[in-house]
């Protein structure tokens, strides 16, 4: 029975082909440092899940952002866990992604034929930093308000167009409801869309080119 369902599905979805190309392939022997890429992916997925859950109660307006987070922490069961995972997951993700980058650098894995994989990886690192920067404002507490004030101010020091960039980031001269709303949109829609597309490309390249091997003394 199971067998016939499987073969019916396999004929239409090509499950065996996927299994053969993705899972049942030969790869070089590698060490534990090579697990950090998948660890970053895992943490990224967890961020996605906890982020979606936080959006059940979070409201991106200056009137209610802080209170809604207080409600998540005190009023909802396990709200502290979901927010705690999201908060710490962000830091851990930056850390694993950065060490992953250092590993790739140390083994020269960005060289032929994986230049483009490196390229997508750097995009992902900056995507994660962008998520960190925009997400930091959302709790609308003193720390986030003043850090973002200074952070956007830094962008404002760019010669000639600085003031323009500052106003675009903040949606006006001041850090306001408009800023919070656009940071929220960037944080839950725009950055994730870019990141998901880039992750897919990154993974496709890893499967297509195979994971790099640990270089020997002559290479």
């Amino acid at each position, binding site marked *: 029975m199971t067998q016939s369902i499987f073969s019916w599905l396999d004929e239409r979805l090509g499950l065996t082909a996927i299994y053969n190309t993705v899972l049942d392939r030969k790869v070089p022997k590698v060490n534990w440092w090579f697990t950090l890429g998948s660890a970053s992916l895992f943490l990224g997925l*967890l961020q996605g*899940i*906890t982020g979606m*859950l936080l959006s*059940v*109660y979070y*409201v991106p307006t200056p009137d*209610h952002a802080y*209170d*809604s987070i*207080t*409600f998540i922490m005190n*009023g*909802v*069961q*396990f*709200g502290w*866990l*979901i927010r705690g*995972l999201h908060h710490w997951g962000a830091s851990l993700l930056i850390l694993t992604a950065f060490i992953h980058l250092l590993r790739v650098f140390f083994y020269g894995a960005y060289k032929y034929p994986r230049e483009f994989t490196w390229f997508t990886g750097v995009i992902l690192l900056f995507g994660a930093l962008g998520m960190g920067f925009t997400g930091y404002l959302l709790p609308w507490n003193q720390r986030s308000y003043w850090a973002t004030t200074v952070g956007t101010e830094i962008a404002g020091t760019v010669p000639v167009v600085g003031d323009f960039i500052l106003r675009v980031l903040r949606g006006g001269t001041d850090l306001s409801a408009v800023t919070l709303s656009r940071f929220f949109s960037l944080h839950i829609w725009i950055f994730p869309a870019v990141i998901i597309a880039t992750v897919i490309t990154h993974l496709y390249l890893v499967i297509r080119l195979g994971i790099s091997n640990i270089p020997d003394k002559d290479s």
Partner: protein
Amino acid sequence: MGSKYRSPTIDRRSFVKIVTALLGSMMAAVVGLPVIQYFISPALKKDVSDDWISLGPLENYPLDIPTPFHFTLTRVNGWERSSQSYGAFVLRRPSEEIVVFSDVCTHLSCRVSWDPENEEFLCPCHAASFDKFGGVTSGPPPKPLNRYEIKLEENQLFIHFREG
């Protein structure tokens, strides 16, 4: 390292399968079970209001005419504090019997109003009507208008308000 996991009954591949399933379901459980609570806990919290509300001296209410009274209660819903308005009709019978109706239609919770010409309560939503004593005279409502428990203290009228 493959040989380490080899045993007469279980090969490496099945071992990894079992570990994967085990750790995977552990993580799913650690996140998944709290998530259920996370979603439903606001629904389980009963916000109970239980209060005697003063409607003022009895003389304020004319005899035998249902007279509206409004009161406001502040409620905390999540991160929002809001004032909700409630309405009641006070009917003082010549026999000194006092009845206080809620103005919420028992059909779909629209607010009823008193029509003095036809001497009936009218619900604007589905054209229902109730008589002076709250009984259904026409339309879909399943039961008469709700009555509040009342008490009199030094000629002051109170109703017992409960919700939740």
